[in-house]
């Protein structure tokens, strides 16, 4: 049973202290320099689900926590200076409701006149909530599984991975081969939700003639899944495991096909967390494709099908690959169209930051796969049911864009985006094929 029913003020206070210990100049700026203009609301995917879900409002609980711990004025006069900790289970639930209406897409960051990234604050708020007993059961299960390192402990997961490994062996893939220059790191989440991305990436890496290998067993559920609740300690543990594995193989480059938070994390955040360079390069498969196409080392068979690109927030806005995927897809389809919001302000699918991974359809998917019921309390169930309604509202703007583009295929590069778009397009009655970039490109590789 989840801890959703419990409220302990001591845990709340401990959570507040833990969060404040993470202050750095950037977080301090995010906390203290908001003037409350609320411009961030206009681009947040969750504002259509309720004005109270605008970034300025969602980040306020973290500000209340920090003010009460850090600022003398707020400690002396908490009411006047906006310092507060939740005193009841209902208040804590309300904070959880706000924190799980953020996809950490970064749109508030680029929209804010003061460069405030509310998503970063909300990830710290989620850590506070984790310590206070508010974390979705499924997310907690996945975090624990990832930290344990025994990713294939469940028979169902092991079966899925084995079937995939058989296919890969058929492509001549070698596992855990020491001395390989490239290590491809797919996750369990990809094997479960976008297996085509793994097979497609293997075909592309083979076609590019790279000296590569991959782990015989996944190193993560979707590393670092604990980052979704801001649990730096768990993230560090998983990161070290991945870094050690790559060092053991002796590879100079890690390739990822998941352009969601795993790519952003390993490319930009992990060295900061470790306090030193990783010792290897981190590239996304789109980077290798773009480079090969640019150098003329790869020619694709062009398709006539109308294709568009949904830019995952973590790969585009937060990792800088905005035009590269478009250039790759333009050379793969004669009928490539950009979505209306393409660019730095590309709309979010609505399911990022673990939201799509905890809603009832996902819970049911895992229950079916594992053949067992995942126990969720009534209180948490009510939270998840409302979250599912809101994800469909939050995802509508993207679905409308897709519909308007007239595309037959939406290509993207993030497990979360694929999972979310499958839910939202279906819910809003838009028939379109959702594919990952490696899966789509692999079908167009020359024979």
């Amino acid at each position, binding site marked *: 049973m989840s801890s959703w029913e419990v409220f302990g003020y001591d845990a709340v206070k401990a959570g507040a202290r833990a969060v404040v210990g993470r202050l750095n100049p950037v977080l301090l700026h995010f906390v203290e*320099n908001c003037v409350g203009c*609320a*411009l961030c609301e206009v681009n947040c995917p969750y504002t259509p689900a309720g004005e109270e879900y605008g970034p300025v409002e969602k980040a306020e609980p973290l500000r*209340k926590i920090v003010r009460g711990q850090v600022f003398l004025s707020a400690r002396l006069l908490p009411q006047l200076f906006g310092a507060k900790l939740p005193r009841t289970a209902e208040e804590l639930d309300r904070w959880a409701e706000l924190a799980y209406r953020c996809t950490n897409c970064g749109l508030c*960051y680029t*929209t*804010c006149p003061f460069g*405030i990234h509310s998503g970063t604050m909300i990830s710290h708020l989620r850590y506070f909530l984790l310590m206070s007993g508010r974390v979705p059961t499924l997310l907690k299960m996945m975090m624990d599984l990832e930290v344990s390192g025994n990713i294939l402990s469940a028979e169902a997961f092991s079966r899925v991975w084995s079937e995939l490994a058989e296919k890969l062996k058929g492509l001549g893939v070698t596992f855990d081969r020491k001395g390989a220059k490239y290590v491809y790191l797919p996750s369990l989440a990809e094997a479960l939700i976008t297996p085509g991305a793994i097979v497609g990436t293997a075909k592309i890496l083979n076609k590019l003639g790279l000296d590569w290998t991959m782990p015989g067993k996944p190193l993560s559920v979707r590393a670092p899944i604990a980052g979704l609740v801001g649990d730096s300690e768990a993230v560090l543990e998983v990161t070290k495991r991945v870094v050690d594995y790559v060092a053991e193989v002796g590879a100079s480059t890690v390739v990822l096909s998941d352009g969601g938070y795993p790519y952003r994390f390993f490319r*930009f955040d992990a060295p900061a967390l470790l306090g030193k360079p990783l010792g290897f390069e981190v590239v996304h498969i789109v980077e290798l494709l773009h480079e090969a196409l640019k150098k003329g080392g790869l020619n694709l068979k062009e398709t006539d099908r109308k294709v568009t690109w949904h830019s995952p927030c973590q790969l585009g806005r937060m990792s800088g690959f905005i035009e590269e995927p478009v250039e790759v897809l333009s050379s793969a389809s004669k009928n490539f169209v950009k979505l209306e919001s393409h660019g730095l302000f590309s709309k979010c699918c609505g399911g990022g930051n673990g939201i799509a991974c905890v809603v009832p359809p996902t819970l049911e998917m895992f229950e079916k796969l594992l053949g067992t019921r995942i126990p969720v309390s009534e209180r948490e169930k009510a939270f998840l049911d409302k979250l599912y309604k809101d994800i469909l509202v939050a995802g509508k703007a993207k679905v409308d864009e897709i519909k308007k583009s007239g595309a037959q295929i939406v290509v993207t590069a993030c497990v979360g985006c694929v999972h979310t778009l499958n839910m939202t397009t279906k819910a809003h009655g838009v028939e379109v094929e959702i594919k990952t970039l490696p899966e789509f490109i692999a079908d167009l590789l020359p024979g």
Partner: protein
Amino acid sequence: MDILNLAIYTLPPYVVALFALGAAYRVSRYIFLSRRAPVKRRSRPASKLLIGLVKTFLDPLIIGARLRKPEFISGLMMLHILGVIPLIFLLGQHVAMFSYWFPPYSVLQPLSIPSSATSSALTLTAPVRPASEMAWSFVGSVWGPLTIVLNGDLLAILAMLGVAYKLGDKVWRAYKRMIHIRPGDFAALLLLLAILVTGFMATHHLPSGDIVTYRLVLGTHIILAEILVVILPFTKFWHFVFGYWYGKLHEWYDLKYRRGAL
């Protein structure tokens, strides 16, 4: 010593010193908490990065103009761009006082904005420079006929309307029980409004034309402004000095320079 003499001739050095201490405290926290991350940046052409820098500052303005027009017109244009920014730095009386304490400031004297349309009319029609005990007169403004609209009265009214809009927005959000609304929001806006109103009253010799009242109202205006300067590092007014610049420059560095999101 009356309140006006206190405000003009005694307090300014103390006000500046307290502001400097507060600002140093705020900035020092950023310095002491800073850590350098060993992250390899994504290579992008310098020209694109430069355009990206300009866009980082412009994008929120464009978004505001497109998607939140009332806030853009009232909050940004009326309150900031046309209101308090030119008023604070260029209103003739302010230029005179700042120049008294900091002589190099008088370099802005030609850009001075007159306090009212009447005084601006003088700049166009007066055949001689008015007699004045001050070291310079307002007649030499470069704004010429523009002072018909570019004058303290009009700009103060726009600024007051802008503050009123912001207050209304805060009241509406507080009514809807949004948790990001704090008493400090109202305190800051009411202080700003009080400064604008007392300044407007002083230039119009309100509520009466006698010298005692005039000195009291003007003295109150300046003292309130000095309070704002002292508390500025600890209020949301800090955005004007630091938050805005640090925030946008950091965003550019993080997203565009480091991650290459152009």
